[in-house]
């Protein structure tokens, strides 16, 4: 099976006044194309750092990484990477539609074959009719929906999400979780999703990568055997409860 992201012994160190911190140490990881991987771990385990290495936002101090068969910088220049931030990072001076079309205006503005139109994506995330609204007129959940549409507008092959629903209330988060799975099924994009919620990690991922902290390293790669399509009610099944329990027990030792 083709690989979307391949990490070999990835190490990241930061140097500050108080000394050098090893954020990630010898991460080995292969993410198959079209899969949904969730990264779970205690704070400070380097899960956001790992995501930023894949997005070419952070240069690893050691090791090798390839994204869609190339260096991360090449994938980025080819518009193959979409990124969703924790707090949407919309531009407040642009309307919803202008925020979604931003990737088509800068950096060459290229969209990959098969990319959907901005209107199509706004419909996919349930925001038809809100094109002319400004970000301050939207709720937190709606802002994240705009951010997801923006990340998808260039038709990326890899969607990186950094705790995108972490600041939302639980009801909104549950709904967006289900909707995200529908987006994933309809686009076929590879998704890497960082979270610190055990339930979110287990519900969304085909696999859950558990990271341990100080230094950040792979603790366990847990396959999720829940049937698809996933429904929120599945979280009450014995399989899900057992999985969540296992993740919790491993996390306690991280």
């Amino acid at each position, binding site marked *: 099976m083709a690989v979307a992201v391949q990490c070999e012994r990835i190490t990241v160190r930061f140097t500050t006044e108080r000394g050098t911190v090893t954020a990630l140490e010898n991460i080995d990881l292969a993410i198959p194309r079209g899969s949904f991987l969730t990264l779970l771990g205690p704070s400070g385990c380097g899960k956001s750092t790992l995501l930023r290495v894949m997005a*070419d936002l952070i240069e690893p101090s050691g090791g090798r990484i390839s994204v869609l068969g190339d260096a991360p910088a090449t994938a980025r220049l080819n518009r193959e990477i979409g990124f969703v931030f924790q707090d949407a990072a919309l531009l407040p001076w642009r309307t919803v539609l202008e925020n979604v079309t931003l990737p088509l205006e800068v950096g060459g503005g290229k969209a990959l074959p098969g990319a959907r139109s901005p209107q199509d994506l706004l419909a996919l995330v349930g925001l038809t009719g809100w094109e002319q609204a400004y970000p301050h007129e939207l709720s937190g959940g709606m802002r994240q929906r705009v951010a997801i549409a923006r990340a998808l507008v260039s038709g990326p092959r890899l969607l990186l999400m950094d705790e995108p629903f972490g600041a939302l209330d639980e009801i909104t988060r549950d709904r967006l979780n289900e909707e995200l799975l529908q987006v994933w099924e309809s686009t076929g994009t590879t998704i890497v999703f960082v979270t610190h919620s055990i339930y979110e990690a287990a519900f969304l991922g085909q696999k859950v990568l558990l990271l341990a902290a100080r230094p950040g390293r792979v603790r366990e790669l847990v396959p999720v055997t829940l049937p698809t399509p996933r429904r929120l009610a599945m979280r009450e099944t014995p399989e899900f409860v057992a999985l969540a329990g296992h993740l919790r027990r491993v996390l306690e030792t991280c």
Partner: protein
Amino acid sequence: MANQAEPVTMASAFTEDAEAQARFLARKRYLAWRGRLLPVAAVIVFLLVWWQAVKIFDIQPFIAPSPVAVGQVLYDRFDMLMANLLPTAIEAVSGFILGNLAAITLATAFVYRKTMEEALFPIAVMVNTIPVVAKAPILVLLLGNGMEPKIAIAAIICFFPTLVNMTRGLRDVRAEQLELMRILSATPREVFMRIRVPNALPYLFSALKIAASTAVIGAIVGEWIGSTKGIGALIIQSTYNFDSPLLYATIVVGSTFSALFFGVISLAEKRLLRWNVTHGV
């Protein structure tokens, strides 16, 4: 919200209730008119009290003129007052434009070259500490007795607040917005035009609103030294002649112009920054 076409998803959140809607709008109208009429009423009461005080206590006109006398001067000598406002207005507006353009340019340089800020910012602070009344004679000596020193004073006064605000606005960009632009492989020019400049606009307008009034003050103070025309010259002349009705009328003209200038900037801000929820402050 300003959009005319009612979006489907949005409309579904509202129900029709004509009576409640009417009450809501009536309340809004009432508050709007109260906001407009109260200041007018306060000014009228103030003028009445002033007028009666001058009358009752029999205050000499050269100490404090009655508002009626001031109004009389404003009416009778309107052409003369406007002829003196013109040079002051030209100086204030030219100084405003030059000072702000220079400040915006230097702020841009500061953001991209930290060394320039380290070298030049202390000088800007020092120039800013010199009182306007001291800058005026220095600049008159340097630039002569025409409009140039007045324009220079107005420009220098506008310069500092805009420099500080603009530098901050261009620099205080959210880290995630810059990361987003990097993921999109945006050029430095695109980052500047699409992130830094729009982010700096609210900061810039706060500075421009301060500058609109201070530029007029700068031009007036500049005219105190060796000028024969302008609002500043008129203030000096009427003071030395104990012509306080003319002094007060001159102040009314100068302040009215200053307020109009401020109003124009505020209007431009409202037009340009419709996205900014904090506008209108």
